[in-house]
């Protein structure tokens, strides 16, 4: 019961924060709302019993990734961006019914899926030896190749980001349209 109340609080917080991400116009407020959403989602993970994912959510998402955004926000001069309106108004109105449609579809699929799903097979085993250990052991045995591929993708992403974001002073001068 107590768990459920905490979960509801975190969920409401997350939904409100994500609404803030979508609706606010100033980029700095948007990044703050995103941070708030990430932290509340980490809270949801903790409530659900996935401490490892929650802690990694805090470390990687809330610290590393969101700080990238802050860096970019301060690196780009935003006076120009703030003058324009920040949303496509017409497209938003058109898209709204489709979002509702998406929700209805999700609702149907989820109800069907939940009715068909089995219950708690490995719960006891996991509770005996601890969550983080189980995640680690399965991650490094069954999904080892996937893990390595993800690390490779990370490396490629790093190199790509460096290559793309590098300042090439000569190449594109005079090429701007």
């Amino acid at each position: 019961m107590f768990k459920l109340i905490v979960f509801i609080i975190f969920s409401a917080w997350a939904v409100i924060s994500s609404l803030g991400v979508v609706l606010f116009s100033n980029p700095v407020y948007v990044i703050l709302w995103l941070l708030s959403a990430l932290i509340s989602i980490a809270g949801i993970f903790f409530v659900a019993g996935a401490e490892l994912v929650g802690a990694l959510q805090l470390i990687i998402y809330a610290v590393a990734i969101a700080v990238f955004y802050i860096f970019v926000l301060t690196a780009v001069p935003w006076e120009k961006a703030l003058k324009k309106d920040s949303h496509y108004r017409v497209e938003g109105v058109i898209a709204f019914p489709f979002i509702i449609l998406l929700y209805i579809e999700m609702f149907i699929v989820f109800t069907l899926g939940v009715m068909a799903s089995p219950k708690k097979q490995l719960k006891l085993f996991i509770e005996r030896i601890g969550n983080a250990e189980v995640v680690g052991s399965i991650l490094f045995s069954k999904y080892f190749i996937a893990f390595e591929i993800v690390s490779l993708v990370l490396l490629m992403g790093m190199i790509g980001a460096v290559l793309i974001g590098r300042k090439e002073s000569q190449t594109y001068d005079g090429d701007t349209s």
Partner: protein
Amino acid sequence: MMEIAINLLIILIKILVILAIALGIGAYLTLVERKVAAHIQRRPGPMVVGWHGLLQPIADGVKLITKEDLFPRYGNRFLYNLALIMALVPAVLVFAVVPFGPTIEIGGREIKPILTDVNVGILLVFGLGSLAVYAIALAGWASNSKYALIGSMRKAGIIISYEVAITFAVMGPLMLAGTLSTFEIVQAQIDQKLWYFWVQPVAFVVYMFSLLAETGRIPFDIQEAEAELVTGFTVEYGGIKFGLFPLVEWYVEVLTLSAIAVVLFFGGWSPINIPFLGFVDPLFFLGPFAPFVWFVLKVALLLLFVLWLHWTLPRYRIDQITAIAWKVMLPLALLNLVITAVIAPLIWR
């Protein structure tokens, strides 16, 4: 029902004690720092308020609180105040996973002197500790000042760089202990009769470098840089708001990271260690209080070491700091990780 009430009471008392420790000792560390600085420079330091300046932090607090609250005209007032809260809360929250001593019995009830024994405690420490970067970035942005912005950007860069190094550095002790919970790590060190400092000196060096960089201590205090940036991101803060930023950044964070260093490398509350043989306890006469005294003693020594460094070394340049992080500290930490993986079975036995 009675059981729940007693448990809640215990948790409340723990929270109060931890808050008192974090903020009270944090405030008194200002006096310690001033005294250490003064004596290294052959001055007596604060002497007037109280015996040898013992009431100086209270006097400072009263002075700062009664000061006028200034605000830069074109700043953003909401973010300006939010930055302060975001600096204070994560720094104090980290204390929730610091174990102060072994399990004790009071009135037939076993009490762990730790607020929450999460099984990912160490990850939580670094996750929460690094949230300070938002406080600093926001403070710099909301102040609408060039110096504040430069200082906050420098700090964000340094924290990102050293977060990587510190995470890889603590992986060594974690691998030896085989757990992520702070309480269990200390227990593992006592069981294995080994402070991890004896087998992980490289990790300890990397950890200390990262501690200094993340808390903005000399030699890595380029984001404050009194001479060039007029104290960086706190330029536009006045009164008690200015007082709280250094309190959090220089004292509370150093305190938490020192406590975590003691937990990871110096066996928490255990007495002096002879590797693989056992523990020597010169403070045995204190009985059940000895572990707590040992813990406080180790943290205090580490903290004094940090202060001592502060008044010895000059300041690095920003490019040197990030170059050290990526070119020296990260490879060292990775190398240490490989070696640890080789020797770990020897220690597990």
